[in-house]
């Protein structure tokens, strides 16, 4: 014997009887999930962008011109021993000059009068996969700076760090919106349930008197909550996808991120947001019933 075949039709008949309130709840959930989703999408893409550029980080160390050429091999050996260094390449002054010549092929005049050895020789350092995190690169940079024979270290930290700071800030905003989403959902769903309970208090009272279990009474409300979560978050994800597709064609990315192609939230994240909304709404519904179900 199972009461489930009676709970499902009761859920739909309850929702039909209280259409407006359920619609408003679903739309409110949709709105909040949309904002949460948008923030997650921005964070996700900023994080990707930062990751991409972090992978291209090369640490460039400038070798002291006074360092005798025979000591350069020793310096290379010392650098290679440092944690996080994957590979190094010694770029001599002449190689550096040749690179510049290639870069300024059309404006050779810029280099006129400069000797082939005006650039210091450098060591170009590739870092290992685990070093992409900025927090881990900093100690390596300090160690390099302290090595005798190295005058300066450059790793394009400013813009990569700014990107990371933006990603971290967006993550904070996403958490804040997540909290707002949680509170709004709790407030809206619990009020809808309470309103429904109030409107149908006589019916629920009668059900209790004829021997309905809490599961039988609570079931349709929890299902209603789950449906509201599903409809609200589903609508939000659809709207977010439409917004994303629209913005992708409208926004021109500036400068160095011109070649970055933003992507929509991955399926597991979308599924997670929808599943989370369903679980949250169902839980709030179940809790809102608790007071009423006390015998």
């Amino acid at each position, binding site marked *: *014997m199972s*009461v489930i075949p*009676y709970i499902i039709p009761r859920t739909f008949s309850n929702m039909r009887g209280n259409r407006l309130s359920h619609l408003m709840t679903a739309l409110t959930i949709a709105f909040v999930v949309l904002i949460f989703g948008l923030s997650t999408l921005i964070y996700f893409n900023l994080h990707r962008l930062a990751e991409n550029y972090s992978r291209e980080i090369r640490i460039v160390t400038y070798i002291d011109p006074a360092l005798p050429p025979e000591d350069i091999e020793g310096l290379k050996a010392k650098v290679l021993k440092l944690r996080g260094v994957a590979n190094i390449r010694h770029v001599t002054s002449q190689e550096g000059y040749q690179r510049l010549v290639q870069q300024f092929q059309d404006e050779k005049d810029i280099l006129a009068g400069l000797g082939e050895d005006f650039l210091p020789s450098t060591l170009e350092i590739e870092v290992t996969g685990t070093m992409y995190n900025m927090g881990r690169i900093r100690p390596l940079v300090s160690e390099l700076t302290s090595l005798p024979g190295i005058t300066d270290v450059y790793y394009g930290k400013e813009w990569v760090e700014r990107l990371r700071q933006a990603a971290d800030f967006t993550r904070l905003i996403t958490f804040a919106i997540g909290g707002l989403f949680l509170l709004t959902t709790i407030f809206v769903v619990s009020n809808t349930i309470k309103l429904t309970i109030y409107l149908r208090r*006589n019916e629920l009272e*009668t059900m209790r008197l004829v*021997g*309905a279990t*809490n599961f039988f009474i609570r079931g349709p409300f929890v299902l209603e909550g789950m449906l509201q979560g599903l409809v609200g978050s589903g609508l939000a994800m659809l709207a977010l996808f439409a917004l994303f597709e629209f913005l992708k064609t409208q926004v021109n990315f500036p400068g160095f991120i011109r070649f970055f192609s933003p992507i929509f939230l991955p399926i597991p994240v979308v599924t997670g947001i929808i599943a989370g909304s369903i679980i949250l709404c169902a839980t709030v519904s179940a809790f809102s019933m608790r007071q009423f179900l006390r015998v």
Partner: protein
Amino acid sequence: MDSPLIELKHVYKSYEQDLTVLEDINLRIGKGEFVFINGPSGAGKTTLLKVILCIERSTKGEVWVDGINLKRLSNSKIPYLRRRMGMVFQDFKLIENLTVFENVALSMEVCGIKKSVIEQRVDQVLKSLGLEIKKRIYPRRLSGGEQQRVAVARAVVNDPLVLLADEPTGNLDAGRAADIMSLFNEISARGTTVIFATHNQELIRSTAKRVIILDQGRIVN
């Protein structure tokens, strides 16, 4: 009476320190018995029924129903107890947005009984109460007497051990009240224990059933 179906031992019910609604109630009701609970308004009749149906818990004393001590019955088990009892209320307590059939079927649906069984049984009960042609109608379109018959149908559809009625004729005229009374007599004749709370002396005088008189929360006869 060897083993009573319902037994109350020194039962008290109070809401606040000064408001005692039931006081030292001792009562034994046997299987198949028809008992009237009589007394003026506020005598404690409804509370007594509520205590038996476990809508209210007694403050002191023991209430036994079919061998179950209600004091020890957990909240989660109460629905299962109620399924073995039928209750008819003065205000019918029918659900307005359900048809006659659906109202009666509700008592069986909460037990998880199969739809085909419910359809057969509800049709049978509605037919026996002369409500077959009204089964698709909503309660607001029925007369008071008809609504009370639907309430009785809902209470007996699960073949309860005991049928509790709280002023079931209170909202009906004399003719309709007599109809409902004879309906309860029929149900009792089939072996169901009936506890019928009423303040209507006329109704009691017309039968020769056992009468328990309550006054200010105490049994006085």
